[in-house]
């Protein structure tokens, strides 16, 4: 059994509770957990304290369960889970089990992670405490209080919970889903947060919103990035603002688990990691330009087999760079292939560009042309942005890859997974 650091704290707005206290809170809320033993469960939660206490109680009782933010539940998801004999339990009102699902195979200790479902219905990915505890190799970590921005039930959220549960001195400060950036700002004001795990999109929002001087003075010691392609521009920007912070980016997915940790401050990862020898606990390889991962932290149904990640990669010298997703990230411009991720990465090196997204726009004659959505920082003023950025791209990428259509947005679009 994994050793739980029950003394680590979770700091909510109005109180701080240890994991031991959260477990007690959950047990009081749920009552006798024996009644859940014969069912594969999803606890639907509507607050961070509910989410964390449900998780603590679920693992202490060795239930077959998962956590889901109440806001994600709709009729389609309800039916989808019912088809798989998964019971949704309203955590705030779990006094009795209604409409019990029959026929579910119950595996004590299984933790169901629901994918974001951006391309359809969410998938249930099976993990357990062992596969979520990717921190067993972390021998020492300075004490930290981590800002927790992720939506309850996402793989990144479980990762942060596992960090606090299994590594000494790792407290959490959950952000408010009503306004994450504001709650991060508040946590900087109270100076309780010393570490943060988040996405590049979240940071771009932060950099547009929070007073730069406040960021420069923040006691942030550790920054972890992931969930999206981590480009060189955001790494350099964060290094400039937090020169003493330990900045790393992590490649992970709910199916493959946490696989690659990069600490050298460069985008992509070292090509030397391409090593598929069976004795390696985590191995990566490239097949037809796609990244495959075999990890002991992958979902429990993968049984240590190679997992196709769906991520396109390209080797540039000693580096493997991410080029986007296989299903939607290639623009065919008259037979030439343009990669949005590489175009975005270049645009993001421009000092006035806060955020960029490049997509394919249907166009006469050539099939598709690259189209860019851009958020400029406030200092950009009356810059003739379209001309300026077009010239900024010229000479740095093939002519066909330079965006032809430009849309300038007022703010960074962000979804509940903190991605854009």
């Amino acid at each position, binding site marked *: 059994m994994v050793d739980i650091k029950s003394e680590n704290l979770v700091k909510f707005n109005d109180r701080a509770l240890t994991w031991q206290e959260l477990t007690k809170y959950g047990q009081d809320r749920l009552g006798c957990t024996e009644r859940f033993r014969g069912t594969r469960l999803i606890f639907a939660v509507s607050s961070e304290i509910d989410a964390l206490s449900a998780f603590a109680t679920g693992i202490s009782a060795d239930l077959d369960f998962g956590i889901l933010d109440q806001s994600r539940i709709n009729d389609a998801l309800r039916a989808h889970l019912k088809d798989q004999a998964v019971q949704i339990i309203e955590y705030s009102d779990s006094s009795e089990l209604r409409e019990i699902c029959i026929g579910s195979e119950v595996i004590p200790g299984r933790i169901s992670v629901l994918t974001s479902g951006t391309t359809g219905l969410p998938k249930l990915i099976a993990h357990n405490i062992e596969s979520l505890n990717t921190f067993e190799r972390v021998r020492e970590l300075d004490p930290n209080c981590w800002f927790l921005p992720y939506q309850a039930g996402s793989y990144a959220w479980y990762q942060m919970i596992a960090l606090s549960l299994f590594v000494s001195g790792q407290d959490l400060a959950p952000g408010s889903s009503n306004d994450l950036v504001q709650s991060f700002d508040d946590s900087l004001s109270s100076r309780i947060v010393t570490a943060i795990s988040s996405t590049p999109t979240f940071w771009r929002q932060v950099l547009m919103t929070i007073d730069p001087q406040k960021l420069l003075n923040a006691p942030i010691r550790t920054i972890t990035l992931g969930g999206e392609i981590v480009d060189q521009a955001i790494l350099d920007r964060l290094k400039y603002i937090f020169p003493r912070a330990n900045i790393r980016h992590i490649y992970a997915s709910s199916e493959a688990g946490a696989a690659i940790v990069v600490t050298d401050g460069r985008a992509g990862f070292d090509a030397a990691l391409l090593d598929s020898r069976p004795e390696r606990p985590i191995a990566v390889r490239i097949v037809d330009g796609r990244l495959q991962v075999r990890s002991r932290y992958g979902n429990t149904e993968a049984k240590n087999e190679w997992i196709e990640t769906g991520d396109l990669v390209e080797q540039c010298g000693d580096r493997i760079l991410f080029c986007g997703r296989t299903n939607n990230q290639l623009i065919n*411009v*008259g037979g030439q292939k343009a990669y949005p991720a590489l175009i975005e990465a270049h645009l993001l090196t421009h000092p006035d560009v806060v955020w960029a997204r490049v997509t394919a726009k249907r*166009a*006469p*004659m050539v099939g598709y*042309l690259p189209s860019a959505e851009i958020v400029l920082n406030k200092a950009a003023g009356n810059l003739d942005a*379209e001309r300026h950025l*077009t010239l900024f791209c010229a000479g740095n990428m093939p002519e066909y890859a330079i965006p*032809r*259509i430009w849309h300038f947005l007022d703010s960074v679009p962000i979804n509940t997974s903190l991605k854009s």
Partner: protein
Amino acid sequence: MQRAEVLEIMNHVLDKRGRTRLSNEDQTTREANFRSLDFSEVALRIEAKIGRELVFDAATMRRIETIKDVLDFFETVTKS
């Protein structure tokens, strides 16, 4: 669409790429450095402006050599 409007769109496309604006309709597209991707972008912008897709006839397209041909082409297809 008026010829002057098409010319303005073509110049916008050239201008933002740091190329010389068009001054002589008799120039060939090659001399004017007006490339197939520029042609496609102009067509896309015209489609957005008039709110419908343009119909391209391959034979007519093949005959385009000069800037005048391009202007004639867009003037015609936006009327039809």
